[in-house]
């Protein structure tokens, strides 16, 4: 893409701009959720949408996530392309039944007669003083459910290409946006329209000593830790999963074949988090290529991040800790 014009933006502006552009091109797209209208979303993702697209397409719903999910499913079955915003990932659970029992199963249960192209977008993740109910990671709960796709782009460039893919997808997609990355992560975003296919992980940093698999905010921390280690001659290969389901084990296994060591980092609770599946698939398929134990760094088994700064800091892995753990594994 060397010749392509780009614009430097942060994650949240990229999502805003991409969604607006797609809505300009396709009037089947409607957005619905709490405060998406006059307020433009609590994170400003739909800022200006009400004025530009009108209240038929920018629907402020009642405070009921089950309603949001259920009516979006109905709209999708009638040919619209609803983009349903869950204000915080933590508040998706009243809609859990509609998403996992309905959206996810509509194509399968109707033997391909119906399909359900709803895009569920939601801000997730911690490090923003959000405490127990504004910090959660929810990817594992949904990635376990057949019929759903779950993606979590961590850079503006990926967010644009994956958002376009998600809107066009003919099946339900859960699109996760890390709150802490919204303004923290900036990058050059190609101006042209492009797709990024789901199920392709990205090797964002090459290395031969240890493979580090992560996504979301943790991915950026891992890159930073790897850059630091590089000064000591340790080269980590850092992979951004980008998509949780479908999961690109090919890229991971190839890297593990090269480094023979792997560490998986995620901020969600460790037990049965995404790292469990990644570790299990490595153990099934590449056990004898490993020169060290599989290392998982995940959230402790407490209910998300507490509020007090002392406690929040305790919960979330930071770059120092990741650097230490990577070094330990590389030196194993």
């Amino acid at each position, binding site marked *: 893409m060397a010749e392509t014009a780009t614009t430097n933006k942060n994650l949240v502006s990229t999502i805003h701009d991409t969604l607006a552009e797609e809505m300009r091109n396709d009037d089947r797209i*409607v957005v619905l959720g709490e405060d998406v209208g006059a307020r433009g979303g609590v994170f400003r993702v739909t800022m200006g949408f009400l004025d530009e697209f009108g209240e*038929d*397409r920018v*629907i402020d*719903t*009642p405070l*009921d996530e*089950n*309603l949001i*999910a*259920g*009516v*979006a*499913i*109905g*709209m*999708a*079955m*009638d*040919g*619209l392309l*609803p983009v349903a915003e869950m204000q915080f990932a933590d508040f998706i659970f*009243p809609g859990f*039944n*509609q998403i996992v*029992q*309905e959206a996810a*199963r*509509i*194509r*399968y*249960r*109707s*033997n*391909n*007669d*119906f*399909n359900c192209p709803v895009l569920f977008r939601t801000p997730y993740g911690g490090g923003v003083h959000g405490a127990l109910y504004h910090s959660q990671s929810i990817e594992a709960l949904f990635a376990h459910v*057949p*019929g759903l*796709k779950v993606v979590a782009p961590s850079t503006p460039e990926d967010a644009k290409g994956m958002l376009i893919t998600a809107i066009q*997808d*003919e*099946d339900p997609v859960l699109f996760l946006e890390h709150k802490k990355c919204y303004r923290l992560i900036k990058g050059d975003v190609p101006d042209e329209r492009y797709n990024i296919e789901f*199920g392709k992980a990205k090797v964002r940093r090459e290395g031969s000593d240890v493979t580090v698999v992560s996504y979301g905010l943790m991915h950026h921390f891992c890159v930073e830790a790897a850059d630091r280690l590089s000064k000591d001659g340790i080269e980590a290969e850092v992979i951004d999963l980008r998509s949780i389901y*479908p999961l690109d084990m090919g890229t991971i296994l190839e890297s593990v074949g090269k480094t023979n060591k792997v560490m998986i980092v995620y901020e969600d609770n460790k037990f049965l988090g995404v790292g469990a599946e990644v570790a299990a698939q490595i153990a099934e398929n590449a056990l004898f290529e490993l020169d060290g134990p599989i290392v998982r760094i995940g959230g402790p088994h407490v209910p998300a991040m507490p509020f007090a700064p002392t406690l929040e800091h305790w919960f979330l892995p930071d770059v120092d800790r990741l650097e230490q753990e990577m070094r330990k594994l590389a030196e194993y």
Partner: protein
Amino acid sequence: MAKGKDLHTDLGLKEEDLLGMYRYMLLARYCDERQWALNRMGKAPFVVPVSGHEAAQVGSAWAFEKGKDVFCPYYRDMALVLVAGFTPKDIFLGLFGKKDDPSSGGRQMPAHWGSKERNIITGSSPIATQVLHAAGIAYSKKYKKADAVVGTWFGEGGTSEGDWHGAMNFAGIHKLPMVFFCENNQYAISVHESKQVAGSVHGRAQGYGFPGHLGDGNDILESYRLAKEAVDRARAGEGPSLIELRTYRHYSHTSDDDDRTYRSKEEVEEWKQKDPIPRFETYLRSVDLIDDAKIEAMREETKAEVTEGAKAAEEAEFPDPGTAADHVYGDLEVV
């Protein structure tokens, strides 16, 4: 034949409507009897009976325009989906879980209706989820300025879920072109209405800013009348309505249930006396549309159609296990 001041004429129903309605009631009743017989023979593991609900379902469905309007039914709506275009054979293909079952190709339990070409939205087991889908579809129809009304049906048990509350609220806020039908048969499996519904179902509509009506669900003309007014109202852009149709199911909840622990013989008997089919026959006789011979002929004809449909379905193929992993996604292979 029909006289000037007939009830049905006032309702805008023609003779062929009445005979059609009667025919669907018979079809549903005979399909039900047949599925129970198949269950007893060990050929149908799971049966959801409709008997008792025929007037409510056929009467309400008759107010909709096929090919245009949309049906979001629940599992008990066999008579309804017959009106919407299922044949008895289709019903039995679903009952046996055969490959050509139009609802799911044998993937879902019987009575989980769905058919895109017939505008019957695919349904699931979790109660009341379809009510929100109906609201979403109604929103979409309004957004597209399509001339279409959405109907959704559920039991009184279904009104307890949050989905129902959400759909009522959303429909009221956006004045959606839809009609909510509660087939209130007084029990949700064993739970009596008095433990299910505080206040009343129809009485709740007002709290959402639109009309609610109570009708006799064993009276097909009353069911039709209330439905027609509500559908017309929705079509005219005046918003949603809620219609509660009181009725009773003649059998247990499903073939897995045994109603004797929670309903008295006397109560069941009393309601069987109010069977909607003989009741409609009385009306049809009173307007000289049928007589003994005509009844006999129609019964024989529908019974034969049912027998034939059941037979053809029984002989049909099961789905190929090689297809079991198909259609989880449109574009991804799984397994």
